[in-house]
């Protein structure tokens, strides 16, 4: 299950790690060797929940590969999807679940969450660890070090079918820091939730937030042109840093190793294609500027987040293969989101692009299916032809692509991880509730069984415990 964690800067470390196929434990460098970066110093300790062999029989299955299968069967075995199809025979040894009248989808994936980093109770300052607004470039911070696994928001999201989330730092800075991708399993440690082998992301923010935060402090950036100058300056430093590291590597590590710099390591990781750019950017013109910045310095933008004006440049985003993670209903809370429309995701989809419905919110994460349904019905109202079998991708397969984990999760296909939701109704119906949720073939939520509710220690002994 675990693949070799990605290398940050040194090929040597990759070889050492790939051989074991496991994340490299933090270890002291040999006395005669130059210091080698540990590319995975906070490795995942995730273990799949107890795995069962399960056959879901009779459901309508949205595979997120474009199929809607009536009277479908899904077989899960060894933590993987073993088979999916209409009226499949169930082999011996499977526990059969009668899913007639119900719907089955891949586990819900949220491409934009702050759970854990801005934990409930969110009104408590001590729980707000999401925005390190002390410098416009905090590429050095890793949001995983802010994640509190006891956030009751994780439980609520799991009860709504969310199996995987990318947690991002906030958008107050030009460079907010590294993202982390988590599996939504109860855990006492962040490491116990960490999606093994998922690539890191770098949060970059456009527009009003950084210029407001730092302009308000009387320092740069105070304008959008200041924002772009800030990105460019940082990428110039990152190129220089990567060059010095590469030169030292190429020389057989002779002489003094360049001093590690956490900020530049992350930026250099982007330049090497190992860290995915997750860019908070609302306006069409600013997205176009960011695409030019990425060309100037030779990196790829994986996803524009929020991107409420993506519909104005949908063909460009399709051509650049940049995903768009957005809402249907949010608009008007500031100028850069004044032109948001409900059909944003649908227009990106219609142009052939990668559309994602995301949450950015502990309430919305519990109903990404409904937010997608609002976007879908807005599309129908506008005469845009999209069916449910495709729209399901907006909160499953497409966020998996944005997070760099599409080879493992996001669809119901043989060989994929068995992250599956059994819904009481059509997931695009307002009445649909997740009845059971599996992660890697193990059940993590069963609405009929109270043992699967409210794992958070925080709620123990509190009024909400027995709700």
């Amino acid at each position, binding site marked *: 299950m675990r693949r070799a964690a990605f290398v940050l800067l040194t090929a040597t470390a990759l070889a050492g790690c790939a051989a074991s196929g496991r994340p490299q434990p933090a270890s002291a460098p040999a006395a005669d060797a130059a210091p080698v970066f540990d590319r995975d110093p906070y490795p995942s300790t995730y273990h799949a929940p107890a795995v069962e062999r399960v056959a879901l029989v009779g459901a309508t299955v949205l595979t997120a590969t474009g199929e809607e299968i009536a009277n479908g069967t899904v077989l899960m075995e060894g933590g993987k999807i073993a088979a999916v199809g209409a009226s499949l025979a169930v082999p011996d040894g499977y526990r059969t679940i009668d899913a007639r009248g119900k719907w089955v989808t891949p586990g819900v994936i949220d491409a934009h969450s702050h759970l854990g980093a801005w934990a409930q109770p969110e009104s408590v300052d001590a729980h707000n660890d999401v925005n390190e607004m002390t410098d416009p470039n905090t590429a050095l911070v890793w949001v995983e070090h802010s994640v509190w696994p006891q956030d009751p928001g994780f439980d609520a999201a799991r009860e709504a079918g969310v199996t995987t989330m990318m947690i991002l730092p906030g958008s107050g800075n030009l460079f907010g820091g590294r993202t982390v991708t988590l599996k939504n399993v109860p855990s006492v440690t962040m490491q116990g939730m960490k999606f093994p082998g998922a690539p890191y992301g770098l949060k970059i923010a456009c527009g009003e937030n950084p210029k407001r935060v730092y302009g308000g402090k009387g320092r740069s950036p105070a304008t959008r042109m200041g924002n772009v100058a800030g990105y460019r300056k940082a990428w110039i430093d990152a190129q220089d840093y990567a060059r010095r590291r590469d030169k030292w590597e190429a020389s057989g590590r002779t002489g003094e190793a360049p001093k590690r710099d956490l900020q530049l390591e992350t930026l250099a990781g982007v330049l090497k294609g190992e860290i995915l750019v997750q860019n908070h950017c609302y306006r069409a013109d600013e997205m176009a500027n960011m695409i030019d910045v990425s060309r100037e310095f030779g990196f790829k933008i994986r996803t524009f987040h929020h991107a409420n004006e993506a519909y104005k440049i949908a063909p460009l985003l399709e051509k650049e293969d940049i995903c768009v993670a957005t809402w249907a209903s949010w608009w008007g809370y500031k100028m850069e989101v004044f032109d*948001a429309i409900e059909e944003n995701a649908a227009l990106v989809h219609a142009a052939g692009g990668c559309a994602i419905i995301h949450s950015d919110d502990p309430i919305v994460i519990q109903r990404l299916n409904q937010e997608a349904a609002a976007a879908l019905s807005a599309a129908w109202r506008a005469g845009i032809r999209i069916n449910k*079998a495709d729209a399901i991708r907006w909160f499953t397969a497409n966020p998996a692509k944005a997070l760099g984990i599409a080879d493992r999760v996001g669809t119901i296909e043989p060989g994929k991880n068995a992250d599956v939701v059994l819904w009481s109704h059509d997931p695009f119906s307002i009445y649909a509730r997740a009845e059971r949720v599996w992660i890697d073939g193990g059940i993590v939520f069963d609405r009929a069984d109270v043992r699967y509710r409210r794992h958070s220690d925080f709620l123990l002994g509190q009024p*909400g415990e027995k709700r």
Partner: protein
Amino acid sequence: MIRLLAAALALAAAPAAAETVAITGGRVVTMGPAGEMERGTVVIRDGRIVAVGADIAVPADAKTVDATGKIVTPGLVATGTALGLIEVRSVETTDDRGTAATDFSAAFDAGYGLNPDSLLIPVARLGGITRAITTPAYKDRSDRELLFAGQAAAVALDGRAMLMKRGVAMVLDMGDAGAERAGGARAAELVALRALFAEVRDYKARRAAYDRGKTRDYTLSRADMDALIPVVEGRMPLLVSVNRAADIRDALALGREERLKLILESASEGWRVAGEIAAAGVPVLLTPVENTPASFEMLGATLTNAARLAAAGVIIAIEGNGNHREREMRYNAGNAAANGLDRKAALAAITINPARIFGLADRIGSLEAGKEGDVVIWDGDPLDTLARPTAIFIRGEAQPMTSRATELRDRYLSAIPPSANGETP
């Protein structure tokens, strides 16, 4: 030319609703005593509903709107919103929800400064919302914190003069926010409120003396005391935002002792004291999707709050997600239904119940002869995301089915190649 101009003037001067409309063939959900009818007719004349029923003759002069296969409901009524008072949240000049003025709080009146051209109004309306309770919000400064946010107003969302009724409730925060305003403790607010209400009663009995300067000094300004007289007389409801079960009990006790008419808002832990709320005859406005323990006063927040309050006999109204996201109100009602609330009760919670709670049930909230002509025709279940209104009438007038957002959509839609995948249902 002159004749044309005269005709145009006459058109402009006449009430836009001076016509007869008959909505026929739809499944009519009246939310009134007539209940539901599989195929019903609603007749609107001169802006008012004149007939609703299964066997209604369509008047000869009526413009007929065929609703066959569709669902016909009253216009939805939004609560907990500031429609008409806000445009862009981060642009202060477009936010008229509250004041940082130094000499009044209770006197602040959301019935002034309303903007019927607000771009939020068509967006909310396309969610089936035809009326709203526009509610003031606190605009605190650190050196001056208000007890009362001011008075809410009932408004219509047809782009004409908005104000329906002024002073439909006095708005007050209790719990965490109220305590902070009163000096940092819940007890401080409870003491301050009792003292203020006593002052208002004193002032009410001695207004002439007050004018002659022959009363003791009062804490509040004259405008605030005038505004609070209908509250202490139990005529204007005190709309109290409160969440913790213990705070709800404190609010109920305050209402009982001061003989106030209360409405509770938010009430995250209302389910824990539902019987007491019901016994006090106090209605509750709530956002049922707010189920996270967002503060220490909301530790008991749950998706089942709406269902449990209704089961205990509390009259509930369901709120939207605030101003720009008001259109999600019906989805919130759908979520309450998905979590145990009867579907008809969920629809009542966004139509007749808010009308009743704010004293407007003689005018709006149901499809009944004599009420104002607010009707929505839906292509499916009004609580469901996949359904949309196909026609909306307010005060008898058909509303445009567009907003600035749909105009933006249409401007850019043509640049998108037609999609190959999928089918339109």
